[in-house]
């Protein structure tokens, strides 16, 4: 129980690669919530959310890489 409390009391310390990975659960949450509200049939939600999740993650990382390339060219 005290471990659980400590989990919320003490801020986490994330390495750089862990910070990058934090995009994944957030995008998954966005995809699942969006598809849960949009899909007419509940059984369609898992597949639709998965496709949406992959699309968002790939899109976000591509945008990130693109911005990094522009930054390297300009700087």
């Amino acid at each position, binding site marked *: 129980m005290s471990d659980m409390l400590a989990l*919320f*009391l003490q*801020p986490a310390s*994330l390495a750089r690669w862990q*910070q990058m990975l934090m995009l994944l659960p*957030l995008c998954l949450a966005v995809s699942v*919530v969006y598809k849960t*509200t949009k899909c007419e049939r*509940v059984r369609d939600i898992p597949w639709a959310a998965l496709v949406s999740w992959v699309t968002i993650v790939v899109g976000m990382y591509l945008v990130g890489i693109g911005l990094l390339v522009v930054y390297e060219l300009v700087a």
Partner: protein
Amino acid sequence: MKSPAATLPPSIRGPVAGFLSWLLPGAGHLFIGERVRGIILIVVITLTFWTGVAIGGVKNTVNPEQRWLWFLGQICAGGHTLATLAISHNIPSPPPGLETTRIAYGREEEISVVYTAICGMLNILIIFDVLVRAEHPTVPATSPAPPRAPKAGGS
């Protein structure tokens, strides 16, 4: 089993479902009888919100004095944000020099605030969805198809 909302008129059902959704994201869907959707939404929003709180620490993730604009997003997550605020107020501030034991700085702070604020934004979507569903309840898929009308002048 009938949902508790089935006996209420739509003019009351919608606002009650909306308020429940604000208080606990997904609870409005449970109220109107969308059990699976409600459970999915409760689990996803709760996990995401408290993941953000765990990253940034409960003391400083929701901080209306320092980040009021982000707070506008966070407060849309309703009960989660109120609970975080209540816990935060009951935790004493860390002594000078030991702030990092309770307060996140830098990227961790940003990630925690973004996580919780996005939960609030997603809950706006959930509230609109439950308002629409409460107004126009869908016909269950298991109900029998209505009988065909006879053709006019049929032969």
